[in-house]
């Protein structure tokens, strides 16, 4: 029987696959795992602060009162440049106002209910989005990891010529590495469309700053805002002279009357209480991948036009679709559950990749207990560090240093495993993970 792909090509593809995978396996694993957990970003917020006021909808006049109250509460602080009102949606039926300084929950009558406390959800999003590194560096690193997943998917297919033919053959129990290899290959085949979609959209988001910098340098005299403007629309000229607060209620009423099928998700007041202020309403369109359409209004609440995310040029619609496609929030709970399952599968694929490589070396007589223990420390240490951070959030409160707890544990657990490799730490870490999760569950129920 003739080989569909030349043997030399297969061997080089295997080399490429292993080289890319091993280069960043720990970070890839961390990003895949946090990405899976953060699919429930909205639900985590409800778990974190279960007593925040919830509502199916809020009246436009109540939103106007809430915006006025939020700005009044910040009167002793520097003026807010962008004020966001999160509107109640089925997955997060809460109204929340975020100024440049803080965030408030809002009661359905428009009074301020209290501070928003979602440090865990924000930490989780930051860990996935940018490895909690401030600025654009972390996002760019995560974007590079997305590029690596695309390259790993391609090299994996070439390196395993029978991968499609064997796609339904899964010998689950491990024997001399067969089970691990089967889990790795089968899950990677069947999550291939998901992995490619997630990796490419993640890379587009993460590398957006490099792309925009390139576009600005080549075509817009270095103006990055101008480079983004064809996609997201430009910022209006600010006029800092004081003015009464813009009419926020009228745009919401206009949307409800003119576009009853769309659902407002955010109200953005640009440069509030200045003459340059204007209002933008972001509204979800049903059965679309775009994160929404931006409807622009002047300070008096008169409709000015849309950015064209829903019906503009294809490039704009595509760019606006990357976020929902990446985070899985375009079809309610069923799509989120599917993203959890496939995200977990992708995490398992990454984890088993390095384990397979270590297993092959061990079967060839190259026993590396420190490497093996270190990889155990990554596979079980990262979820343990996440569970510890969540437990700290529940026990210490919103001010708990979650980023420090997570990253110290994430670094210390593999380091300790490498330092004391005599016994594989896998079982101990599994027990600790289960114990921490049980403790977190008990704490949450008790709160």
């Amino acid at each position, binding site marked *: 029987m003739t080989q569909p792909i030349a043997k030399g090509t297969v061997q*080089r*593809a*295997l*080399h*490429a696959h*292993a*080289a890319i995978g091993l280069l960043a396996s720990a970070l890839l694993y961390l990003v895949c795992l946090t990405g899976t957990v953060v699919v429930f970003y909205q639900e985590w917020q409800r778990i974190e602060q279960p007593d925040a006021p919830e509502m199916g909808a809020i009246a436009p006049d109540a939103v106007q009162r809430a915006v006025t109250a939020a700005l009044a509460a910040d009167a002793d602080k520097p003026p807010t440049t962008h004020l966001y009102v999160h509107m109640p949606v089925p997955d997060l039926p809460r109204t929340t106002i975020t100024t440049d300084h803080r965030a408030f929950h809002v009661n359905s009558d428009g009074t301020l209910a209290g501070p928003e406390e979602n440090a865990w959800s924000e930490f989780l999003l930051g860990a996935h989005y940018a490895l909690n590194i401030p600025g654009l560096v972390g996002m760019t690193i995560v974007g*590079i990891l997305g*590029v690596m997943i*695309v*390259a790993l998917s391609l090299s994996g297919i*070439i390196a395993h010529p029978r991968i499609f033919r*064997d796609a339904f*053959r*899964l*010998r*689950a129990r491990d*024997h*001399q590495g067969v089970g691990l*290899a089967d889990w790795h290959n*089968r*899950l990677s085949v*069947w*999550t291939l*469309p998901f992995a490619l*979609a997630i990796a*490419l959209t993640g*890379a*587009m988001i993460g*590398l*957006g700053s*490099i*792309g925009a910098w*390139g576009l600005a340098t*080549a*075509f817009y005299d270095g103006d990055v805002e101008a*480079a983004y403007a*064809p*996609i997201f629309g430009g910022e209006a000229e600010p006029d800092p002279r004081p003015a009464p607060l813009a009419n926020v209620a009228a745009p919401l009423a206009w949307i409800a009357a003119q576009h009853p099928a769309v659902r407002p998700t955010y109200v953005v007041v640009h440069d509030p209480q200045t003459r340059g202020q204007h209002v933008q309403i972001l509204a979800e369109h049903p*059965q679309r*991948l775009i994160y929404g359409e931006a409807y622009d209004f002047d300070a008096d609440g008169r409709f000015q036009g849309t950015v064209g995310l829903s019906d503009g*040029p*294809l*490039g*704009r619609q595509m*760019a606006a679709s990357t976020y929902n*496609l990446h985070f899985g929030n*375009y*079809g*309610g709970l*069923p799509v989120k559950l*599917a993203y959890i*399952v*496939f995200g977990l*599968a992708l995490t398992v694929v990454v984890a088993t990749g390095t384990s*397979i490589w270590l*297993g*092959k070396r061990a079967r*060839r007589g*190259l026993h590396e207990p420190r490497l093996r223990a270190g990889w155990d420390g990554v596979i079980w240490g990262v979820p343990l560090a996440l569970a510890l951070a969540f437990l700290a959030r529940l026990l210490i409160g919103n001010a708990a240093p979650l980023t420090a707890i997570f990253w110290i544990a994430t670094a210390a657990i593999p380091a300790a495993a490498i330092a004391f490799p005599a016994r594989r730490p896998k079982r101990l870490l599994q027990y600790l993970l289960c114990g921490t999760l049980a403790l977190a569950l008990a704490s949450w129920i008790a709160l």
Partner: protein
Amino acid sequence: MTAASPLVWAGSAVAVAGVLLLRRAWGLPRRSAAQNGIAWLLLLAGAVLGGAGNGAWGVSIVSLFAMTAATLLLAQAAATSRPARVRASDRKAHILPERGEPRHIGRRLLTFAVTVPLALAAALLVALGARAAAMLAGAAEADGTGLALLLLPLVWSLLAFALLMLPRRRDQYLWLAVPAVAGLGLIWIGTAA
């Protein structure tokens, strides 16, 4: 999801049928080109129906149904399979040196430089060149920008993989230089026009 077009539901059903037929075709003792072909056509038809019903959203929903069906079949295979009697492949990936082999640190660092920063630079030039070409061809500015933002990670992934597949360093430099120079030329033409 309940308000999805009936075409999306039909497409999902057709795609699930495609996965089931693939399961059957790949389980046969001899390869059946006809069954394989029909199965892939069903998957394609499912995606087309999803797209016709609700555009990109519909295609996404159909593909989630197909992947879920495959996952359930895999779960069934995992639950019923017997432990393997053979050993897994021990093919060498040649990533770390075996005992006594030289480490080639310099060569490895150069490979990293070629596939990461240099390939990124080449991909960026290709993406910007494509944007310039699109604008010359009369595309909307948003299309050109969207194309550049899409091509940057895509071209980098393809280039990094292709470079690692090339056994000779000289070929790697050539594969970097040709798209980079082409992209640079298009940018120059685009900005001069």
